[in-house]
């Protein structure tokens, strides 16, 4: 990989960002570090069995492959394809609604011959792409009505996904789109208006929620009220993390996880295993690597050569932050139990591939920045 030297031609950006110029390699290294750390924790969470670790390694390898491929696609092509991707994504979502496979009581999967996949997962990338595409063609900051149009672009797929019902993904997709709007420079007044609107929508959302989703929110407010159901998860994972202490109990030595008190310990609650075995220092290390990835993403965004790349890269980086923040917040009892995996560490899921696809796009924008710099 080639290393960027510097570019005085660049328009001024905050000095701190400039100092992190060489971070293309750093991004890759950080991702690989998290993935490796994830496999180590997974080995422990799986009860020292290699089988899950091997399968996860294959998934990660696929993800890195997808990233490499996407890194070769210039952002101008991505931009040209954006509206079509968005349209096909919407069609697929409608397809899921009409002909989807009911799995675990929710219609999320679309079966097209050989592959079964979740269109909602793809929308995590396509929605911010579409909002960026829409706003990019206009003068920024966008006018009022343009913001409302952009909100519709976000809301349409979000409503379809929420109907599936998959509220967690719907919120993640919306937040990715909203980040673009925020980064495009919408006035603070309009932002607070949107925030107020969202606040007013909350009771409506509550109506739309399924019983089990409402229960999760209620459990968060008072976990002791449901010690057998969702509360059990939170109580056990708090015990796991808290008993880890400063240095942790050591790899493969977490009693909470090894003695099976911790549910979902290889998937959504894997962070509790990590916290128990590697302690506060380990947690700080992981948070630091995650923060580094977000930081690097924002740097690439700030230096990108056009508004589309800038908005998209910024939104993808902030979305990545949201993923791990929501997961860790949930496992440590700050947020309700929503099914969001810990990025690159939780076992399974199509989420690894989408995530790595996003990083592929970031890499591509980074190389664009370089070519422009010459």
């Amino acid at each position, binding site marked *: 990989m080639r290393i960027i030297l510097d570019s005085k031609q660049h*328009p001024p950006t905050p000095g701190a960002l400039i100092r992190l110029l060489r971070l293309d390699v750093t991004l890759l290294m950080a991702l690989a570090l998290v993935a490796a750390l994830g496999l180590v924790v997974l080995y422990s969470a799986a009860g020292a069995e290699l089988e899950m670790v091997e399968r996860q390694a294959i998934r990660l390898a696929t993800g890195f492959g997808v990233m490499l491929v996407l890194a070769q696609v210039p952002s101008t092509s991505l931009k040209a394809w954006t509206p079509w991707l968005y349209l096909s994504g919407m069609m697929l979502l409608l397809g899921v609604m009409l002909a989807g496979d009911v799995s675990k009581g929710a219609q999320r999967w679309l079966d097209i011959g050989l592959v079964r996949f979740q269109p909602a997962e793809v929308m995590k990338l396509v929605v911010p792409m579409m909002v960026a595409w829409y706003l990019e063609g206009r003068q920024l900051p966008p006018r009022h009505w343009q913001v409302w149009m952009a909100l519709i672009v976000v809301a349409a797929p979000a409503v379809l996904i929420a109907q599936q019902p998959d509220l967690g993904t719907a919120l993640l997709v919306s937040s990715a789109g909203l980040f673009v709007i925020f980064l495009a420079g919408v006035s603070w007044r309009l932002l607070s208006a949107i925030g107020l609107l969202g606040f007013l929508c909350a009771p409506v959302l509550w109506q739309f929620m399924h019983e089990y989703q409402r229960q999760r929110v209620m459990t968060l407010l008072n976990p002791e009220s449901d010690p057998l159901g969702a509360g059990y998860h939170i109580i056990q994972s708090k015990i796991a993390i808290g008993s880890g202490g400063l240095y942790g109990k050591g790899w493969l030595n977490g009693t909470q996880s090894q003695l099976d008190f911790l549910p979902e310990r290889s998937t959504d609650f894997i962070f509790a295993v990590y916290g128990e075995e590697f302690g506060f220092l380990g947690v700080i290390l992981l948070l630091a690597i995650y923060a580094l990835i977000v930081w690097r993403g924002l740097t690439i965004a700030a230096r990108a050569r056009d508004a589309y790349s800038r908005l998209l890269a910024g939104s993808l980086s902030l979305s990545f932050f949201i993923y791990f923040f929501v997961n860790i917040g949930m496992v440590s009892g700050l947020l309700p139990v929503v099914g969001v995996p810990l990025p690159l560490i939780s076992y399974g899921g199509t989420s690894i591939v989408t995530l790595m696809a996003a990083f592929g796009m970031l890499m591509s924008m980074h190389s664009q920045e370089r070519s422009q710099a010459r």
Partner: protein
Amino acid sequence: MQYPPLRSRNAAPRDRMPVQDTIKNPYQERKLFAVRAVVAAFATFLLLALLAGRMAFLQIVNHDLFKTLSQENRVKLVAVPPPRGLIYDRNGTVLAENQPSYRLEITPSQVPDLEGTLARLARIVDIDESDRRRFYSELQRKEPFQSIPLLFNLSEDEVADFAVNRHGFPGVDIAAQLSRHYPTRGLAAHVVGYIGRINEHELSELDSKDYNGTSHIGKLGIEKYYESILHGKAGFQHVEINAQGRPLRILDQQLPVPGADLMLSLDEGLQRVAVQALGESNGAVVAIEPANGEVLALVSQPAYDPNLFVDGISYTDYSALRDDADRPLFNRALTGLYPPGSTIKPFMALAGLEYGVTQANRTMWAGPYFQLPGDSRRYRDWKPEGHGTVNLALAIMRSADVYFYDLAYRLGIQRMHDFLVRFGLGAVTGLDSSGEARGLVPSPEWKRAARGQVWFPGETISAGIGQGYMLATPLQLAAAVATLAMRGQRVQPRLLKAVRDSHSGEFKPVDHKFLGTVQLRDPIFWEQVIGPMVEVTRNPRGTAYHIGIDAPYSIAGKTGTAQVFGLAQDEKYDEEKIVKELRDHALFIAFAPADAPRIAVAVIVENGGGGGRVAAPVARQVMDYYLLNREPTLVMEAAKHADHP
């Protein structure tokens, strides 16, 4: 997801960019973005600090508390499977119930040597290869502290034998549980279906939360269709365990929500009468209440004992059922496709009236055969000498083929198709059960698409008497005759009558689904066809005269005889049975009372011969039981004298 081709690198955006950049202010935009990015970075930093603070709170400030908690953690969550809902017939007779049974379970984490334990267990109880295989496949999926069933339905002796030796088997236990039982055995097997152990594929589709602790799932029929209602929701127990992981006491629990009981519209007595009336013959009987679509009887003969399937059918039992030439596993009522034969004639007559190609008072000479103009091929009547001059009423009553050949010729295949599909033929009825066959109402369009051939005029003629390509299931025929009985009002056939409400304990009826009405130009047409159908069973010259002879209510019916070309189903060619299997299928459709219908019936007796002689008496016994509450008498004398068809 698709990725854009590399080619577009040089495409449109490049020529657009500079233009836009002159309008936009890239410098301004970049600055704006930078401000926003800094704000976002600051916000993420704050949130990260929040996370780190939370971790410090848990891992440093409260470390001692959580450390103690983790050392004293002796509480586990155990799933409690819900009892499955029962299934009743419309009078409260139990069709599916839960009986206590014993099974042998192993908790792998408590077993020091699994292989050795299994080997020693095999000396006490029978463990065959399939049990072993299932156990190991489940072992891979479950957590080691969860118990896994090894054997089901232990006998009392086996339970006693194990209890004596129990001390030598840590981690092995006898568990009492409820197991599904079908007291009426084969009687309603094709309706109720059965449950069986959850297989690999089903497991991947299920919500592991609700099915935690559940080992069985509906596989067929009502048990499958209403699985979500019958199953209920798993409960949990907070159990204190000792150092070996054995439960000491229940601290707290959330009771499971039992599955809801179902009441079917089926009448167990009626079902029994229909089975008896069919006797040794293979065939099907479907009875429907025309006004609301409730299925009163749905018989497919022969049947099988669903109890065999509950805990895994043995290979010998299964191959016996599978290889039986009479195919007991085949649901004839729902999936058996038969040519409707002459039972299509009342609908043909309605089509003729509706399109104005015939009138009630139009007469024609019905000789021994019909010929298309300019074609030498003769389409013969079932009666070698023909019926002489007939009008519509006589043609229905005597089942005069030539009249309907001529009618089909006048209508043409497209209009026949369009009219018959309005009665639901050629489409699934939407019964609440799985695997229903569609049947077929042929059209030139269908033949082009399915066979790549053009429609021949001669095929229209044979379709006029329900032969040729036309195929229907007994259920479709019953639904169509119910529509006829209601003078066009269509209801979706339904097996579920009511669901027990978990709060009040009362059965709450489910809504009927009305499908609209078959509108005719003149409602008098209905009576012009139904009148002659009553004559079929009442007039001495009717083709089913014997069944209406002493009936205290009026029956509107139509006989049918379907020729067996090759075989309707893909059965194996069986040398010994060839004579019987080439015999015609006997059909009969009817409803009663004719002016205020309460029951509509379709009967098919495979290889039975003429419909009037064989199938009509079955329908009469079913109607007698339902309308007069009368057990069937001996086979009626008159049946012997009846002629075709």
